[in-house]
């Protein structure tokens, strides 16, 4: 069974990679948004350093939001969603494969490019490391929670900005702890509490979100 899930994961990633625009767009969006801020608030280094945690995290959040609504859209369109629903394997596990492939293709590039953006916003070295770790812990939660909303709206054709409006309040805890950890490391405060809380949020989402997403898919398909 594990082998089957690996095969399915492989095909999910393959499908996404073959559509270059689908995973390139969030990264480019991330870069552009971050670059807009210095232009908007001025090149003052101290000010940029103070605002950098917020800017990078909000930009990452938005970059995830623009792509998460379409998590199941193509599957619903070509009929493979029905195959998933009728599959031998548990829908929760299949959803987990989809979420994992989405994170690998959409969020890993964000995490890899974030240090460079950190330099643009005058982050120091300690903050860079914390940024990578917290993005690593936080972006999966964004996708896991976004998947629940995305499952609910799977039957709606023109949903527009509905999913961001729906899901954004749930992103607030991760946002708060992610940005605060960067501020804390700049003030040489211990980070263990932040990592612990973000890890806890990640584990909680991992445990419940795929299940809720499977439930949401069954609801959303009932059209």
């Amino acid at each position, binding site marked *: 069974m594990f082998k*089957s899930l690996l*095969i*399915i994961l492989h*095909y999910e990633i*393959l*499908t996404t990679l*073959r*559509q270059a625009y689908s995973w390139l767009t969030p990264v480019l969006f991330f870069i552009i948004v971050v670059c807009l801020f210095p232009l908007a608030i001025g090149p003052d280094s101290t000010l940029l350093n103070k605002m950098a945690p917020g800017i990078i995290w909000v930009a990452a959040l938005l970059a995830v939001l623009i792509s998460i609504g379409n998590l199941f859209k*193509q599957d619903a*369109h*070509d*009929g*493979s969603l*029905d*195959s*998933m*629903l*009728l*599959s*031998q*394997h548990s829908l929760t596990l*299949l959803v987990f494969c989809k979420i994992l492939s989405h994170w690998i293709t959409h969020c890993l590039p964000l995490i890899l490019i974030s240090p460079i953006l950190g330099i643009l916003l005058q982050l120091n070295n300690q903050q860079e490391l914390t940024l990578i770790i917290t993005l690593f812990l936080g972006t999966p939660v964004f996708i896991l929670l976004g998947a629940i909303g995305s499952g609910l709206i799977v039957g709606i054709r023109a949903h527009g900005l509905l999913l961001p409006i729906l899901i954004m309040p749930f992103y607030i805890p991760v946002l708060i702890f992610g940005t605060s950890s960067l501020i804390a490391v700049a003030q040489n405060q211990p980070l263990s509490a932040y990592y612990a809380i973000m890890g806890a949020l990640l584990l909680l989402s991992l445990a419940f979100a795929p299940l809720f997403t499977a439930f949401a898919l069954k609801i959303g*398909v*009932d*059209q």
Partner: protein
Amino acid sequence: MKLIAENIGYERNFQNLFANVNFELKKKECIIIRGANGCGKSTLLRILAGLIRPITGNIFWNDKSIIEDKDYQHEIHYLGHQNGVKPYLTVEENIHLNSTLAGFKILNIDTLLQTLNLLSVRNKKSQYLSAGQLRRLAFAKIMAFPRKLWILDEPTTALDTEGQRLFDDMLQSHLSHDGMAIITSHMNEISDTHKTLILGDNNV
């Protein structure tokens, strides 16, 4: 082995789509559902596949309600309007993915592709296939591993005469091996010796 549909009704936004659909299906039987466009044939098939819950009525597979029977969906092949084919994967990759999803290992993919007349396009991405080829690709999982009940929504759309003959042979073979089938169609090519249900009149 039988399927009983009892008093199935569905409504959309307080408007009745169809009501009082009753039929029984046994081994070697095939029922063809006909009706005007928009009368709910596809919805009825999705209800029979367990993807949608009916507003009224119940469906029994071997005397067990399909809502409680977790294994029901593993004993059916459902083919909707769409083909269940991922456009950015090749023909062979699609077959591999669908069989993995269904929990089945295909032993001889070459013979399968040969029968479906897709051998020449096996490494082509499915977005470049014609509608008829896509429909035949959708048949791949139905041919590859046997399941007792087939629920097919307009299976012969976009197929040329070759393809339709292929489908007829598939269906006949399935029925003769104790299979059951529920098909919607507006084509008269499918033999009229099967049971017919007309939605809107509810006659069998």
